[in-house]
């Protein structure tokens, strides 16, 4: 009995390769629910899959602790230096984590940082976004004005809308002059963007 308990505790503490695998999977499960909108991965499901021998309260404590740490790391979008300092501090404090657990957390963050950050960025985009864009060039053969016969025009279809909501389709006509006007403005935007990324 004591052996089994010890084994469970060791596993929960992330010791041994089994423990590390389980912790890695737990972090994935937490991230799926918190950042990728996968509500199906409930606590009960994760416990059953990963820590079947652990008591529910014990598992809940582990999940809360790991979830909290992941949230701190993700919220600060920690780079490797920050991560190392943070995890080292966590291994030193009372009721903190083991160095094995710290290693699993570090590996997980390195592999998932970009995706999790992207997900957080998307969560904050609640205005209209450009979802898609298609275009073609037509030859206008009829017009009120004689000088517009056989002028090429670009027909652009833009799909606009808020994340997760119905789209609005915008269909615009651009002649050569209007495309030039667009390009001039887009160049200015690009210049500003370059200046911005150089200073940050």
């Amino acid at each position, binding site marked *: 009995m004591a052996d089994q308990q010890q084994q469970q505790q060791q596993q929960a503490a992330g010791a041994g390769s089994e423990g590390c695998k389980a912790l890695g999977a737990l972090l994935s499960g937490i991230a799926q629910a918190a950042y990728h909108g996968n509500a199906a991965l409930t606590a009960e499901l994760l416990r059953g899959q990963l820590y079947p021998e652990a008591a529910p309260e014990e598992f809940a404590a582990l999940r809360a602790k790991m979830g909290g740490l992941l949230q701190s790391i*993700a*919220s*600060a*979008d920690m780079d490797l230096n920050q991560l190392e300092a943070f995890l080292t501090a966590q291994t030193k404090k009372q009721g903190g984590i083991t160095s094995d657990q710290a290693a699993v957390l570090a590996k997980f963050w390195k592999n998932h940082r970009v995706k999790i*950050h992207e997900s*957080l*960025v998307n*969560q*904050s*985009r609640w*205005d*209209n*976004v*450009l979802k898609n*864009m*298609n*275009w073609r*060039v037509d*030859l206008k053969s009829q017009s009120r004005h004689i000088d517009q016969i056989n002028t*090429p*025009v*670009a*027909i*652009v*279809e*833009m799909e*606009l809308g808020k994340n997760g909501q119905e789209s609005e*389709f*915008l*269909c*615009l*006509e*651009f*002649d*050569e002059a*209007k*495309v*030039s*006007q*667009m*390009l001039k*403005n*887009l160049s*200015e*935007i*690009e210049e*500003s*963007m370059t200046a*911005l*990324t150089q200073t*940050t």
Partner: protein
Amino acid sequence: MMVFEGFASDLSYLCLSDVGGAADKISLIPQDFFAELCEQIIQHLNHKIPGVNTVELCQFVDIKWKLGVAMSSDTCRSLKYPYVTVTLKVADPSGQITDKTFEMTIPQFKNFFRQFKEMAAVLETV
């Protein structure tokens, strides 16, 4: 529509009965007659397939833009992502002017810019 159906069945008979000789058969049809038939087919398909053709074609009038950086949010203290907000001033077929505003991330903007450059290139060559 009756005229179309009659011609469509004739055309499919011509094409399906001898795939290899379809081009020859089509060349036997008087040109303006064939053009009329194609026009009818296009109209028929337009009614059957809703999509781009049902959206009103607007004229591009002007563009306004601003570049911002989202620093922080309730779910993430260190967002730091740059984005550009664009407002297009457009005129609908009746002449009424409206503003359409949307946001783009840097990769989205780069793609947007690239598409317009391609457009310019094509317009030049046509």
